[in-house]
């Protein structure tokens, strides 16, 4: 079995780890680390009788995950302190949100930059408040600023030199030029306050956003972790009354039905997520193509399918920017 598929099957059912031999472990741990899933795997396998060398590596991964969690929550707190005086709603997204809301998707998760969603009308005041509080632009180039402000769904990235942590301020969850145009106002209106001045998306919006994020990149980088988030969220919210209905309604509202359905089908194939068959529909031929792309890493941790990666790469630009704009953008970058 390909190491990435082995990783997925052990994540889905940790008992399967009890029958693994040395080389299986070597490949599985290497792929887990490369796919940023080692912390999650370490928590899933905690307490099982495994080879000592494996137990030690998994214990290290839990140390890293604990530290990552502390840093992520602290970065969110420092952003909250900088933005609290503005009285603007601040919605935390992705990994930091899962941890802040205590969801199983956050357990052992490796967390990167802080992503926040604010109303589009508040972008300027948020920008100035962050700059006043010590954040600085990562890229000084004016063209990038223009590109970000007009075509992307976020401010150019900011970093805080005291902590070397980056923050991405979004006003919607997909670039405005992308075909599906999510309802940003609804995302913020239905966000759930955490009680400390920050909020997280509603359960259904979290899943829709995770699906949008997975395909928005086009090259599906970090796809296995993204689908693991979706698996954990679906299982956590499965007991909410008629959750499938709520999820379908939100996906429709954000014009992200196709993306959400495909993400759920892929999660089901990869992690055996219990999903309402009628809702996500039967698996399609193209699902297999996505799955091959997602599980392309070899036992040494190397990406193994450059050809298909290129196809997806072009698609990622197309999703972000319609063909006409794509040509101009690439041309501007090349000429500059």
């Amino acid at each position, binding site marked *: 079995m390909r190491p990435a598929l082995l990783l997925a099957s052990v994540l889905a059912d940790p008992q399967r780890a009890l029958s693994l031999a040395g080389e299986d472990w070597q490949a599985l741990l290497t792929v887990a680390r490369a796919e940023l899933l080692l912390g999650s795997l370490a928590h899933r396998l905690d307490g099982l009788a495994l080879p*000592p060398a494996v137990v*030690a590596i998994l214990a290290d991964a839990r140390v890293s995950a604990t*530290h990552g969690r502390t840093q992520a929550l602290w970065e969110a707190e420092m952003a909250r302190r900088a933005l609290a005086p503005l009285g603007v709603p601040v919605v935390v997204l992705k990994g930091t949100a899962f941890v802040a809301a205590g969801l199983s998707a956050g357990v052992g998760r490796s967390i990167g930059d802080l992503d926040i969603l604010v109303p589009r009308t508040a972008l300027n005041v948020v920008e100035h408040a962050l700059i006043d509080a010590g954040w600085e632009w990562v890229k000084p180039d004016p063209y990038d600023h223009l590109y970000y402000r007009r075509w992307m769904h976020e401010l150019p990235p900011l970093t805080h030199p005291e902590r070397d942590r980056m923050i991405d301020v979004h006003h919607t969850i997909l670039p405005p030029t992308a075909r599906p145009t999510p309802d940003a106002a609804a995302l913020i209106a239905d966000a759930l306050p955490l009680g400390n001045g920050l909020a997280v998306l509603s359960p259904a919006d979290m899943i829709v956003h995770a699906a949008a994020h997975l395909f928005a990149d086009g090259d599906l980088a970090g796809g296995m972790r993204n689908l693991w988030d979706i698996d954990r969220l679906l299982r956590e919210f499965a007991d909410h009354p008629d959750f499938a209905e709520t999820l379908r309604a939100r996906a429709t509202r954000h014009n992200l039905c196709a993306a959400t359905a495909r993400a759920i089908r892929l999660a089901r194939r990869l992690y055996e997520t219990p999903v309402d068959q009628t809702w996500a529909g039967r698996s399609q031929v193209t699902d297999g193509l996505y799955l091959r792309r997602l599980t392309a890493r070899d036992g040494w941790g190397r990406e193994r399918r450059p050809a298909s990666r290129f196809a997806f790469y072009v698609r990622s630009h197309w999703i972000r920017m319609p063909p006409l704009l794509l040509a101009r953008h690439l041309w501007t970058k090349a000429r500059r």
Partner: protein
Amino acid sequence: MRHGFAVRVGPVGFRIGSEWQAPVAALARLYEGYPAPPDGVADFTVRLEAARPWRRWARPAITIRGDFTLPDTAPLPLAQGLLAAEMGMNLQMALGARRWLLLHASCVERDGRALLMSGHSGAGKSTLSALLGERGWRLLGDEFALLDPATGLVHPFPRPVSLKNESIAVMAADISHERFGPLIAGTPKGDIRHLRPAADAIARMAEPARPALLLFPQFGQTEDLRPVGPVESFVRLTQASTNYVALGETGYAALTALAQGIPAIGVDYPDTASALRLVEALWAEAPR
């Protein structure tokens, strides 16, 4: 990968994959007698790759990759494959170690007690620890000291010592030829040659030791000794540790205990002979 090598150094298991045969052959010779990773599972993976497929043959250059990488690493010529593997292994420790507080320090042991020497690269730590390793001390490591937060003991990491330029001749004077790796010339740090630790140091790589004395050695015009207080010692050690912050409160507790628990002395020395003499004198005075 086409070629592979696996080895255990102290408590850490490494596997190195390479697109060329030469670096792996050189590793096998240099690490002869070292054990393999336990349970057949290495803690860290290093990959020696060609940046572009054709770079395997045309002016081959090694790109160092692995579990942990730095984005700006410069490729090395194939002839420096052994150095590339060493750098890859060091980087995995520097960025990935979590079981111990990692100190960029040399460490030698005598009757169960450890002498730690911390300082910037180029302060002569490696040469000093290699010399002591031939003069009645057991070499625990020339590059990294592994402080166990639970016990306060230092675990050995006896990798082959990386000797640079003049110190190659200093060591070659009275050590038999076959304990040396090949001469690697024209590296960013000049000439490099690796020296295998004494057989005893390799055989006893699982035996930790209790830290007893911490020195901050530095080349200086004249001999000078300066006691270093616990606060300064603590701050300097945080700058010599790549995983202090990542260990959180455990790291804080382990490092404050070390900085408060053992005497620390700044040592300026004009030459190797005076360094050896000063170390032996300071060790004799160190509390039992």
